[in-house]
């Protein structure tokens, strides 16, 4: 029960921090709204910045798929690290067997990395 309380209280602190993290921008923006003087409304102020020329087309166009590949790679390796963390903690008890097992797991993913490397996916043009 003691431990449960400790655990819950610790996350309560995290929650307090989260509330403050959201409140600060809200309060600051509200204060700014009250404090600032009235500015003149000029239509050209509300155009998008584009180095001084009239903005043309929408900025939201289809972009290079390369970013997508990096995102995919990230997912693979991030999941790998999620598996590696518990392994690292339990390593003391598991010993050399766990090391070999993890080595096999990582090598399989490394093959993926080498494949991507050879496919020139990692090359940024």
């Amino acid at each position, binding site marked *: 029960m003691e431990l449960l309380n400790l655990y819950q209280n610790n996350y*309560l602190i995290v929650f307090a921090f989260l509330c403050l993290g959201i409140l600060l*921008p809200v309060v600051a923006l509200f204060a700014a709204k009250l404090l600032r003087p009235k500015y003149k409304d000029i239509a050209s102020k509300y155009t*998008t910045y584009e180095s001084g020329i009239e903005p043309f087309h929408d*900025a939201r166009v289809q972009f290079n798929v390369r970013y997508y590949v990096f995102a995919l790679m990230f997912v693979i390796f991030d999941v790998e*690290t999620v598996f590696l963390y518990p392994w690292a903690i339990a390593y003391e008890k598991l010993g050399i067997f766990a090391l070999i097992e993890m080595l096999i797991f990582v090598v399989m993913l490394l093959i993926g990395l080498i494949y991507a490397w050879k496919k020139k996916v990692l090359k940024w043009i």
Partner: protein
Amino acid sequence: MVQDLLHSSPSLLNFGIFFAMALAFLFVILGFVTYAILAERKVLGFMQGRIGPNHLGGRWGLLQTVADVLKLLVKEDLIPKASDRPMFIIAPVIAFAPAFVVVATIPFTENLQFADLNVGLLYYIAISGITIIGTLMAAWASNNKYSLLGGMRATAQMVSYEIPLVMAGLGIVLLTGSMNLNDIVLAQQESGWFILWQPVAFVVFFIAAMAELYRVPFDLAEAENELVAGFHTEYSGFRWAMFMLAEYVYMFAMSALIIVLFFGGWLPPFEFLSFIPGAVWFGLKFAVVTYVLYWFRATFPRMRPDQLMEFAWKILLPVALANIFLTALLKELLNIF
């Protein structure tokens, strides 16, 4: 007193007290950010043979940042017509909130730590990743070409450097067998600072941390001379300030994390120096790490995007992986820990 509070059953009163403590700490952080910005400008000034801010608040320009904040507070609030309004408004909040939440788990001294989570390191990494959503939202909502490019670069960079960062942290977790940041510091009491045992992890971690912070050799996301200001080109006034604030709060958090992981947190470098309180040691180490960040800003040229991505995937990631297995092997064979 705080220990009793932590062991009592959670209630609204507890929450109120925690909230008040967190609020006090928020002001400490805001104070830090104020003077970190001033210190950065001063250090850059000295390194470039200039004087830096010296008009407001005496010779050292001690009130310069305060004046800047006041100016931002009364600035006109511009939201471009072409932008996606709700997203444009939410983005700075999403970018800032995790920056502050992350600080909750960092142990500053033996007694000054807010949330003693047993998943500390993983918590830090997981929460700090959320900021990129705010960045990407800002970039997309602005409907500006520079913003979108900057946002995409920021995302690709963040995503790529997250992996070496996590992998480098894994070496530490292997040595201590715990993700609790308190345990990590205490483990360094017997064995010496982890920078001695994990120099490779330190180098990888530091480089990746610089990239995560968008500090200078890796500041492509907001490269002023090619992308104007990157993802916050369209932001002004306090909305823009939130992005800057998030950046500096992350700098605070990351410097603290580096100290906790590699430089023994509040521990003195030698046993006989332990009469000096831990807070002083933490402060000193903190000053050194932040100074190095400023120093890098003054001395390194910006990287190219292609070099940046290839560096993360082809050099840092294999090195970090090799480091993990070397550490595991050494631990198994030599039984040092």
